[in-house]
């Protein structure tokens, strides 16, 4: 036993976060995830206070509480804070805390990236809040439609601050998405097949992919709008070949998937609490996995239902409408799988008078509110009805039912359910139940009536109404309800805080769960979570956590004995779950903090108009990111290492598919989505925007285009060769570096030939695409340079090829996307030609 105890202590010491200033160096998933949750709840309070201001303004007719401008700012920031700074970070935080524990890993795949994501989120959020304090706030609503958000109609820095702050938060979301996807694919317990994963694992895999595909369109749109505002490049100005509708397409192809990015994790929470309560594995597991996948796919086909009144073609309206209604099917499948799980349970039914667990109470609230919101959503998918109800308070009511009922309620259930994992205590007492009923009554009082307000003809976003409009009583009721709701949420927060401090001590596995996060001998779990990585057989939501906890505490499992002070976890085959590699995780580091801070400072410099400083800071940020020290495991060849249970596995540095390769692939997926958005912008404008009949199509010298194409092929071929040669690849790496440098430089030469970028969208689009190519040449050069440096340090051998694997993957992608970028002007010209 002594031996296991000392292993246990050594592991604990390795994985712990330091106190004091050391907190800024934290990289542990549990710590970072909790920070995401706590910060997002603080933003929830801010957003809630703003909502109360809106309800005060609308409580009485002819109200003078806010000016029209003050009202516009308040609803813009309310929407922004709730969507970007509360909802997404909350679900990210929850996934970060729970996912590794559920899947049997000690941490996420890229802990420093998690920390970097957190600091980006904090600084992005602070940028927006500081702007609010200084009165630098956009007044155009959170979806920022141009031309209202253009420089002409929204002068001042408010909109710029918003665009930069949100882009910052999106960077954070993409970082977290990459992290979560790779963790789900590679870092699992031994033997956990893809089809054995808990629903939460499937969900975060799909949600991560949705974030990678859905957030880049908004980032591209924001960049284009910012370029139009700051540098006068026309993308949305109809008098110069742009089109305001382009923004709507890009914004909603982000905005609609985002709704399901919020809903799916909430549904996964239900899928983990309901079976726990019912004492059985979830019913229809395969159905649920299918439903999650189809919701993920369908969510990218319905952005147009926000645009039924924008004058889209009848055919596309019908398609968007059908897709919007179809989403009821996978949603229905999930609802009835939960009902089936409850109906045919193994756990004893609570006797009369015995109380339901608090989390189940919130889940039942979810059932009612979410189904109500889903049904009004189906109503809105019906085009003729939508033509009446769109942009009225009916939509506001629908959206709040879905977001509060379909997201916030399950999230609160999840917080109560997982509190023992955080503090080792569980909720008791009446306050939690009072809070639930206040919230349930508050939501319905505020928003049920609001459907009627909309049907009575009150458009959304009006700052007031006259006493004879007939909208007085309904608005007063909604405002009264909002007070009940605010009291309810305040009570939830107080109850959570009290539980953290003074709740009843919880035994391990208090709810008799079936998933691995409860397989811990003590609550809260130690920083390394598992003293040994368990092997599991069968579905990972029908385990016996207590037995597994006893076994792993005895050191039964993999990687139970620390060596060289390395932080190790198991890397598995994504499909079969067979152990494949030992993943070495990085130690604490201040660099994520400094990198995010530097990027934040660069953004502020852009706002202040000092572009040289911004450039210098951006270079500094890249330098900080590059200086993340590589793990010492890569200093020499190790060959297979003992992983416990008689198993020998290579370290990740010696495996052909290390987590970094999966990470790069995930990042390239997001990159592809960004390229597709830019490509779509060009094709859309050329085909549909006014003023393209005599568009000034740029004439880029053919020679330069051929040189670029040649460089792209060169970069790909040499990287392939370098990968084959391994240790002797120096000359090929140098070649790959040089070709990528050429891809960086030739677009700059091509940009010199562009004229009139501020007079028409055509040259402006080409400028954007050339900058995209230039940036990717730079990235290729950096990867090449990194490989050179690693090779010189002796970190590349025939066994240790990670840098070459990454270079090959990147340069292949660069060749394909570069070809698309080069073809872009020709395609745009062909479409624009009469």
């Amino acid at each position: 036993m002594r031996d296991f105890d000392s292993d246990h202590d050594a592991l604990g010491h390795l994985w712990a976060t330091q106190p004091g200033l050391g907190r800024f160096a934290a990289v542990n998933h549990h710590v970072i995830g909790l920070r995401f949750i706590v910060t997002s709840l603080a933003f929830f309070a801010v957003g809630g206070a703003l909502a109360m201001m809106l309800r005060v303004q609308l409580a009485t007719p002819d109200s003078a509480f806010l000016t029209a401008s003050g009202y516009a700012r308040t609803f813009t920031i309310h929407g922004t804070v709730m969507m970007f700074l509360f909802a997404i970070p909350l679900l990210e935080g929850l996934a970060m805390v729970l996912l590794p524990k559920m899947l049997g890993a000690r941490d996420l795949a890229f802990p420093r990236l998690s920390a970097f994501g957190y600091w980006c989120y904090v600084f992005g959020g602070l940028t927006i809040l500081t702007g609010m304090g200084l009165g630098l706030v956009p007044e155009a609503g959170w979806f920022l439609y141009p031309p209202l958000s253009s420089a002409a109609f929204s002068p001042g820095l408010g909109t710029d601050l918003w665009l930069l702050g949100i882009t910052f938060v999106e960077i954070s979301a993409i970082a977290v998405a990459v992290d979560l996807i790779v963790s789900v694919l590679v870092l699992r317990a031994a033997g956990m097949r893809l089809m054995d994963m808990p629903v939460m694992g499937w969900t975060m895999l799909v949600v991560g992919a949705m974030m990678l595909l859905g957030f880049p369109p908004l980032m591209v749109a924001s960049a284009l709008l910012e370029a139009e505002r700051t540098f006068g490049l026309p993308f949305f100005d109809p008098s110069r070949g742009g089109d305001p509708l382009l923004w709507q397409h890009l914004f909603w192809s982000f905005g609609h998937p985002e709704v399901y990015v919020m809903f799916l994790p909430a549904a996964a929470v239900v899928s983990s609490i309901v079976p726990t309560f019912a004492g059985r594995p979830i019913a229809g597991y395969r159905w649920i996995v299918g439903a999650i996948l189809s919701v993920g796919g369908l969510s990218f086909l319905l952005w147009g239902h926000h645009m039924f009144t924008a004058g889209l073609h009848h055919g596309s309206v019908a398609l968007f409408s059908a897709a919007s209604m179809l989403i009821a099917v996978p949603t229905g499948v999930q609802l009835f799988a939960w009902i089936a799980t409850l109906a045919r349970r193994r756990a004893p039914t609570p006797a009369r008078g015995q109380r339901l667990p608090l989390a189940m109470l919130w889940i039942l609230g979810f059932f009612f509110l979410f189904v109500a919101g889903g049904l009004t959503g189906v109503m809105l998918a019906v085009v003729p009805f939508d033509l009446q109800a769109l942009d009225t308070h009916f939509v506001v009511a629908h959206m709040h039912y879905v977001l509060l009922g379909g997201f916030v309620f399950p999230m609160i259930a999840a917080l109560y359910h997982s509190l023992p994992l955080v503090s080792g205590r569980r909720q008791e007492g009446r306050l939690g139940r009072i809070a639930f009923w206040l919230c349930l009554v508050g939501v319905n009082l505020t928003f049920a009536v609001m459907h009627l307000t909309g049907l009575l003809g009150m458009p959304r976003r009006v700052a007031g109404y006259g006493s004879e409009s007939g909208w007085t009583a309904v608005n007063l009721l909604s405002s009264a309800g909002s007070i009940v709701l605010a009291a309810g949420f305040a009570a939830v927060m107080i109850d959570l805080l009290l539980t953290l401090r003074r709740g009843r001590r919880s035994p391990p596995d208090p709810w008799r769960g079936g998933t691995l996060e409860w397989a811990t001998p003590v609550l809260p779990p130690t920083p390394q979570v598992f003293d040994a990585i368990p092997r599991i057989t069968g579905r990972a939501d029908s385990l016996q956590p207590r037995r597994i906890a006893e076994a792993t505490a005895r050191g039964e499992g993999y990687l139970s004995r620390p060596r060289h002070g390395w932080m190790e976890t198991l890397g598995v085959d994504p499909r079969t779950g067979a152990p494949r590699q030992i993943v070495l995780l990085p130690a604490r580091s201040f660099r994520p903090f400094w990198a995010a801070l530097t990027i934040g400072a660069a953004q502020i410099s852009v706002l202040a108009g000092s572009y040289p400083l911004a450039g210098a800071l951006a270079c500094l940020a890249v330098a900080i990111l590059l200086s993340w020290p590589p793990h010492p495991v890569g200093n020499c060849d190790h060959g297979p290492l003992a992983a416990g249970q008689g198993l020998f596995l290579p370290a990740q540095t010696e495996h052909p598919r290390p987590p970094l390769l999966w990470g790069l692939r995930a990042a390239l997926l997001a990159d592809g989505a960004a390229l597709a958005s830019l490509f779509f912008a060009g094709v859309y404008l050329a085909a549909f925007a006014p003023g393209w009949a005599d568009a000034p199509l740029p004439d880029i010298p053919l020679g330069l285009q051929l040189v670029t194409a040649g460089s792209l092929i060169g970069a790909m071929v040499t990287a392939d060769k370098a990968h084959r040669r391994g240790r002797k690849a120096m000359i090929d790496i140098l070649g790959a570096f040089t070709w990528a440098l050429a891809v960086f430089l030739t677009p700059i030469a091509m940009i010199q030939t562009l004229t009139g970028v501020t007079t028409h969208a055509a040259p402006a689009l080409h400028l954007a695409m050339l900058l995209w190519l230039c940036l990717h040449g730079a990235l290729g050069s950096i990867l090449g340079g990194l490989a050179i440096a690693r090779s010189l340090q002796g970190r590349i051998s025939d066994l240790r090829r990670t840098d070459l694997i990454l270079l090959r993957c990147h340069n292949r992608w660069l060749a394909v996307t570069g070809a698309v970028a080069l073809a872009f002007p020709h395609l745009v010209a062909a479409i624009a030609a009469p």
Partner: protein
Amino acid sequence: MPMPRLTILHDHSTSSAPHARRTAAAIGGNLCPRPCAARMSTDGMLSPASPFAVDVANLGWAMLAGGTVVLTLVTALAILATLRPSALSRLTDSRLILGGGIVLPVIGILALSAGAARTGATMHHRVSPDTPTLRIEAVARQWEWRFHYADHPRDAVMTGHLRLPEHTDIEIVMTSEDVIHSFWVPELGGKMDATPGHRSTIRLHAGAPGHHLGLCAEFCGIGHTAMPFTVEIMPTADFDLWLRTAYQEGARHARF
């Protein structure tokens, strides 16, 4: 709240158009003694006044009824399954999932699609082939609507007040001079964005004489709240007389 006013844009028979425009604006208040739009009450979609709006309202009530049934059913099932699972123990997992998750939504979607198609047909087709059609051009800007009687021999522009002849199909072609606005008369039904650089069309049916409130439905800046307009459906004879009189009054004042 700007008062509705009438402007004669140009005059085919006299050469004093600029004067006419100025003077007609000055007397606009007399020509349109309508109450200010914001001072008008509306029951919105609950008092539909055109075939399309009636159809949408009926569709809405039908969906509300169906939705209430589904909501009650699902909530009751969830509560029953939680508190009294024995009541549902005869249903197997797959029966519940297939029945509730696939069959029920598919039936609902088919019913809704049929309802939508029927209502959509009302929107796109004219009430009867011999109903006259009036084409109006609307231009939105921060923060007013201008309606331009393009096809009328006496070319006229109204601001903030739309006069329509009774029992006529109306086709409004709209655009915007600045930001995106959205044309909406809840009681007549339908909504259409006025987008700069685009021309979009909405078809309405003006039924019996009466007054209706019109609103801007797309947030268009701090004046968004103060952008309502009135729609006045008039007996055909009155409408023709009004256009002619408006023109003549404008012309008579112009001589001074």
